[in-house]
C-alpha cells in the first residue's frame, strides 16, 4: 500500500469506500493514479462479520446522529434512524442485498416521459441510455451479475416459490430470481451462495460483491492506494483560485489532519455527501461547495418502499436463502392509467426474527402483534421498490441544534411525500396483496416504510447548472476538480436498486478523470 504525504498535492482524495468510492479508487489506482481513500468506519472481513443480527447491525451501520422532519412515515416510525447505510470499509456494499437491475431508457428521461407534475423537480439525465449501457455491461461483468453474460440465475428459495406462484396467478410474466451480484458458482476469487439468508449481516462466503474484498484489495495491490480507515472528512478546502486543494479529516485518534489534493471525489452516501459540501462553506463559497445555485442537498430521493407479508397455513421458512433473490418486473413501466407516473419493482424480502419484529412490522403490541410473530414460520415476504419523484424541498440540511462527536451540525433529512408516491405505494401493496391472496394466504400484513437504504440525487447531475450540482461526469458545475462519485449524483432514482448504476457511473467517471488529468484539464 502506498504512503502518500500530507503535503503531497498530486493525489486524488476519495471520501468514502463504498460502491462509488471503492470502485473509483480501484479504477484510478490501476491506471497509475495515486489515491488517498478516506473511510470513516473500521475494516471488517469475512471472518469478523458478526452472525448475531443485533451485533452485525452495530458493527456495520452508520449510527452517528441524524434528525428528520416532514410527513413521511419514517419520521414517526424510526425517528432516530431515517436512513440505514454503512460506516465501514466497503460502505453500504457490505450490507446490501445485491439486487442489480438497470434503469430503463425512459427512466433517464423522467421529465420528458412523465411531463410536468406539480410539486416535483423532475429533470432528464444529461446522459443518454446508450452511453450508460456500455458501462452497465462493464459493471455487470465486474460484479458477476446473474442472468447476464451467461451467468445462471440463483436457485429458487421457499420464499421465492410463494412470490412466483402468486405472480403467475396474476398473469405477471417477468418473474425470476433476479439480476443479483451474488455468485451462483465461484467467480473472481469469491465463494458461491450457500443460501445463508444473512446478506445484510455481511456475506461470510464473499458470494455477494462488495468493494471490501474486491475493488479495495485490488487497488491496494497496485501500490497506488493509501487507505485511511476511521478517518472522517470534516471539510474540503479550496485555494484563492476557487479550486479545491485539501481535505481536512479527523483520524482514528480524533486528531485533525489535512491532506493536500489535486482532485477531491466525494462518495459518502447521499446524506453525508451534501452534508460535507455544506460544512465546507467559505468566504468565496458562503453556501457551501458546489452550491452556488442552492441545489446541494435538494431533490433527495429514497425510493418508495414498504413490506407486504403473507401469512399461510403451511410453513415457508422465508429466512432460509438469499434475502432478496426474486423480483417481479412487469410494473416497471410508465403507465399513467394506473394513477401515477413511474414504475416499481416487487422484490423478495425475508428478515431475521429480531429485524422482522423491529423493522418489518408496523408499530403495534398486544395479542394481534404477538399473533403475527407467532406465524413467523409461515410468513412469505416482499417489498415495493418504486420510483419516488424528486421535490426541491425534500432535502438534506445542516441541523445546528444537534452536533456530532466533532461538534459539527448533523444532517437533517426532510421528506414530504408527493401524492404520486402515495398512489404508487397503494397500487403496489394492492398487487402484492392480490398475489398472496391468489395462493390462499390466511392474512396479509402491510409493514411500514423502513429507514431508507437507497439514498440518492442530493448532488445530482444536470445539463442545466441551475437544476443540479454536477455535469454529466459528476464534476461539480462550480468547481471542476471537485466531483461527486456516489448515488448523490443520480439525476433521478428510477425504480432500480441504485448500486449497479453507481458502479457504472464510477467506471465512467474514472475514465474521464484519467483523461482530464492526462490533458492537464484538472
Amino acid at each position, binding site marked *: 500500500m502506498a504512503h502518500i504525504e500530507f503535503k503531497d498535492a498530486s493525489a486524488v482524495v476519495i471520501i468514502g469506500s463504498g460502491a462509488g468510492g471503492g470502485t473509483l479508487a480501484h479504477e484510478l489506482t490501476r491506471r497509475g493514479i495515486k489515491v488517498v481513500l478516506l473511510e470513516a468506519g473500521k475494516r471488517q472481513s469475512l471472518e469478523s462479520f458478526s*452472525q*448475531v*443480527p*443485533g*451485533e452485525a447491525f452495530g458493527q456495520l451501520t452508520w449510527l452517528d446522529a441524524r434528525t428528520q422532519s416532514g410527513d413521511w412515515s419514517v419520521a414517526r416510525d424510526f425517528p432516530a434512524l431515517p436512513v440505514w447505510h454503512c460506516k465501514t470499509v466497503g460502505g453500504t456494499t457490505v450490507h446490501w442485498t445485491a439486487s442489480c437491475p438497470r434503469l430503463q431508457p425512459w427512466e433517464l428521461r423522467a421529465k420528458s416521459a412523465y411531463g410536468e407534475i406539480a410539486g416535483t423537480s423532475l429533470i432528464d439525465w444529461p446522459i443518454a441510455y446508450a452511453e450508460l449501457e456500455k458501462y452497465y455491461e462493464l459493471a455487470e461483468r465486474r460484479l458477476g451479475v*446473474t442472468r447476464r453474460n451467461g451467468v*445462471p*440465475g*440463483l*436457485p*429458487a*428459495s*421457499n420464499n*421465492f*416459490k*410463494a412470490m*412466483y*406462484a402468486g405472480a403467475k396467478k396474476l398473469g405477471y410474466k417477468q*418473474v*425470476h*430470481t433476479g439480476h443479483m451480484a451474488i455468485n*451462483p*458458482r465461484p467467480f473472481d476469487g469469491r465463494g*458461491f*451462495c*450457500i*443460501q*445463508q*439468508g*444473512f446478506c445484510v*449481516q455481511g456475506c*461470510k*462466503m464473499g458470494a455477494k460483491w462488495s468493494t471490501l474484498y474486491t475493488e479495495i484489495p485490488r487497488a491496494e495491490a497496485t501500490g497506488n492506494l493509501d487507505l485511511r480507515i476511521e478517518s472522517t472528512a470534516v471539510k474540503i478546502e479550496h485555494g484563492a483560485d476557487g479550486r479545491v486543494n485539501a481535505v481536512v479529516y479527523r483520524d482514528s485518534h480524533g486528531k485533525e489532519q489535512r491532506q493536500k489534493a489535486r482532485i477531491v471525489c466525494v462518495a459518502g452516501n447521499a446524506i453525508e455527501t451534501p452534508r460535507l459540501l455544506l460544512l465546507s462553506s467559505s468566504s468565496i463559497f458562503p453556501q457551501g461547495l458546489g452550491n452556488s445555485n442552492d441545489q446541494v442537498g435538494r431533490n433527495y430521493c429514497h425510493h418508495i418502499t414498504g413490506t407486504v407479508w403473507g401469512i399461510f397455513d*403451511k*410453513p*415457508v*421458512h422465508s*429466512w*432460509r*436463502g438469499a434475502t432478496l433473490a426474486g423480483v417481479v418486473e412487469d410494473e416497471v413501466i410508465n403507465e399513467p392509467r394506473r394513477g401515477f407516473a413511474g414504475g416499481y419493482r416487487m422484490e423478495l424480502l425475508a428478515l*431475521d*426474527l*429480531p429485524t*422482522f*419484529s*423491529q423493522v418489518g412490522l408496523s408499530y403495534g*403490541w*398486544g*395479542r394481534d*402483534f*404477538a399473533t403475527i*410473530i*407467532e406465524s*413467523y*414460520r409461515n410468513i412469505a415476504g416482499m417489498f415495493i421498490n418504486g420510483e419516488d419523484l424528486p421535490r426541491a424541498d425534500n432535502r438534506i440540511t445542516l441541523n445546528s441544534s444537534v452536533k456530532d462527536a466533532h461538534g459539527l451540525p448533523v444532517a437533517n433529512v426532510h421528506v414530504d411525500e408527493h401524492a404520486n408516491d402515495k398512489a404508487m405505494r397503494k397500487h403496489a401493496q394492492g398487487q402484492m396483496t392480490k398475489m398472496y391472496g391468489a*395462493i390462499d394466504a390466511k392474512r396479509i400484513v402491510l409493514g411500514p416504510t423502513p429507514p431508507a437504504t437507497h439514498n440518492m440525487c442530493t448532488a445530482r447531475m444536470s445539463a442545466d447548472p441551475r437544476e443540479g450540482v454536477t455535469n454529466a461526469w459528476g464534476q461539480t458545475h462550480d468547481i471542476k476538480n471537485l466531483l461527486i462519485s456516489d448515488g448523490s449524483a443520480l439525476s433521478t432514482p428510477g425504480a432500480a436498486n441504485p448500486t449497479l448504476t453507481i458502479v457504472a457511473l464510477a467506471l465512467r467517471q474514472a475514465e474521464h478523470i484519467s483523461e482530464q488529468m492526462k490533458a492537464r484539464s484538472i
Partner: protein
Amino acid sequence: MDELITLNRRELLKTTTGMLTGLVVAGSPLALIARGPAWAVDLTSLTSSEGTTLMAVARTISPHDKLDDAAYALVIQAIDSDANKDEKVRKTIKDGIASLGPGFTARAENDRVETLKKIESSAFFQFLRQKTVQVLYATPMAYACFGYEGESFSKGGYLLRGFNDLRWLPEVPLEDSGPMPVGA
C-alpha cells in the same frame, strides 16, 4: 425438513445484551423452555417487585403463552442495565411503574391492556415497548419458540438444509430459477 434448532442451556440464556445469572435449576436444556423458575435475574437499579411489574408489562406488550418467563426476564435485565447507566431512564421507569398503580401484575390481561392503553404515549410505555421488542425476539428462547433457525454459515448455509424444501406450491421452472451449485 424439520426445523434445525438445537440449543444448549448456555445458548438459551444468552442474548445480545446479556445473560441470565444465578441459575438454580439444572436439567435438560429443554427444561428451560418449560415454565418454571429456572432462572433468576440480578437487578441493580430496580427492586424485585419493580422487576415483577415490568415482567407483567412486557408480557402484556408481547403476550406469547408458549414463551417462558426466562425470555422476558432478559428484557427486564436489559431495562435494569439501562436504568443503572442513566439516571433519567431510571426515573422514567420508577415513575412509570408507580403510575400503573398497585396490583398491576395480578390483574387480568384485559385490565392490564386497558391500563397500558391509557399511558401508551408516555415515554415509559414507549421505552418498554421498544425494549421488549428489541430484546425479546433476539433471545434464543424466542428463536426456538417461533421456529427461527438463525445464522447458518457455521452449518454450511441452508443450501442443503431446506432453503427450497417447500412442496405445497409448484416448483419454479429452471428458466426463472437457477441450477444448484456444482457439487452441492
